[in-house]
């Protein structure tokens, strides 16, 4: 209504509503663009946050802890008994691949210790029949990326940086993302992680060492070009 409306003043009668046009958009639509914007922002934000948080090896791999066929404990063997990693993973210094020990390696001790234990039945079977124990593999680089254990282990990079505190795990789990960004973080700054070579399998070692000096002395230059790992 408009009080300058001449018709209204003239007749002096009750105010007459003049409907110029039926409104196409009802009143509630006034806030619609705002609400839509809020909703889209919320959903978009949530989707982005979800992808950022979940669509990464930090979520998808870290914590992967499959059930192993034999209840083998690194905590007992590597920590309490103090067996070196290389007693079992003996190829780790010599090849790209770190082997899972053959059942004969277990039988070195278990032919004399816990001879009758039912937990070790599968190991004894495997040793006598020659059929492998179906250990579930946790860590695996995709086939398009090249990884090598010996180059790291012989240059003072400890297992703990890529596998976590294995010696305290009852059952092994995937502790680090092992994504490309993870590899590159260290390749850009190896001096933060490097340590004397004979301490590589001492996962609890927390001493200080002049990393810059080691990197310099040994001429450690981890490649960052794509062809280092995608060859």
């Amino acid at each position, binding site marked *: 209504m408009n009080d300058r409306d001449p018709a209204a003043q003239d007749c002096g009668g009750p105010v007459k509503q003049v409907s110029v046009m039926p409104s196409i958009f009802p009143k509630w639509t006034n806030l619609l663009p705002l*609400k839509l914007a*809020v*909703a889209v922002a*919320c*959903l978009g934000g*949530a989707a982005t946050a*979800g992808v950022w*948080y*979940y669509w990464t*090896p*930090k*979520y*998808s*791999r*870290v*914590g*992967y*802890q*499959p*059930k192993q066929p034999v209840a083998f404990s690194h905590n007992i063997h590597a920590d309490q*008994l*103090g*067996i*070196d990693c*290389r*007693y079992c993973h*003996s190829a780790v210094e*010599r090849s790209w*691949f770190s*082997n*899972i020990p*053959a059942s*004969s*390696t277990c*039988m*070195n*001790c278990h*032919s*004399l*210790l816990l001879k009758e234990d039912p937990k070790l039945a599968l190991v004894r079977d495997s040793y006598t029949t*020659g*059929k*492998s124990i179906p250990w579930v*593999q946790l860590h695996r680089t*995709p*086939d*398009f990326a090249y990884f090598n254990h010996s180059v790291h282990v012989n240059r003072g990079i400890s297992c703990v940086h890529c596998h976590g505190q294995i010696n305290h795990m009852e059952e092994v*789990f*995937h502790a680090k993302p092992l994504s490309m960004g993870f590899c590159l973080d260290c390749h850009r700054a190896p001096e933060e992680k490097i340590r004397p070579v*004979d301490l590589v399998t001492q996962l609890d070692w927390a001493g200080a060492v002049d990393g810059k000096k080691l990197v310099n002395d040994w001429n450690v230059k981890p490649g960052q070009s794509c062809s280092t790992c995608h060859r």
Partner: protein
Amino acid sequence: MRYFFLFFFLSIAATLGITGFRGGYSTRTPLQVFNDMKNQAKLRPQTDSTFPGFADGVSSRPFPAGTVAQQVGYQDNTTWKNDPFNTGRDFSKGDIPNNFVEVNPVPITSELLKRGQDRYLIYCQPCHGAQADGNGITKKLGMSTVANLHDPRIIKMNDGEIFNTITYGKNTMMGYGGNVPVPDRWAIVAYLRAIQLSRLGSKDDVPAPVLEKLK
């Protein structure tokens, strides 16, 4: 809008409830949405193989019996066998069970001893103990037969026989031939001799000035 927010926060709660947080433990294999040549048609070590030639269905192949790995530089098994370095045996003494070489065929250097110590601590210490006196951790847990390597019988043994024990084992000790490469076995033998010697010393071996200090 109220309904939207209700729905929105419920679905966030549901997502968190189902998927959890980073670092949670799970027995599920990590999901792979796009395969992207992550799994190529090649055999990786220690995996299953359906190749018909591999009767046992395993991708890592054992050495066929009586063969020598190519990289060791021998063309045939006989030459390989006749080098005491490889077998710890001296076949010029005849093809008899105890034709072991008397002395380590590898020249003893401080690097060799250091390597030997390193390897000894990895492969032998769990049973024989750091002092080689047979008091490793497994002895304490019930492996009663572990030998004391300071035993006069073992001190008098030929180097080749110890090499042979490492390779194939002896009685209740199993072999380490699969885990310890040949040069490392000789390094361990050399180091073992050094520890044995350390207990055979007498007062006369200590230089006089040092002896003075110890008094």
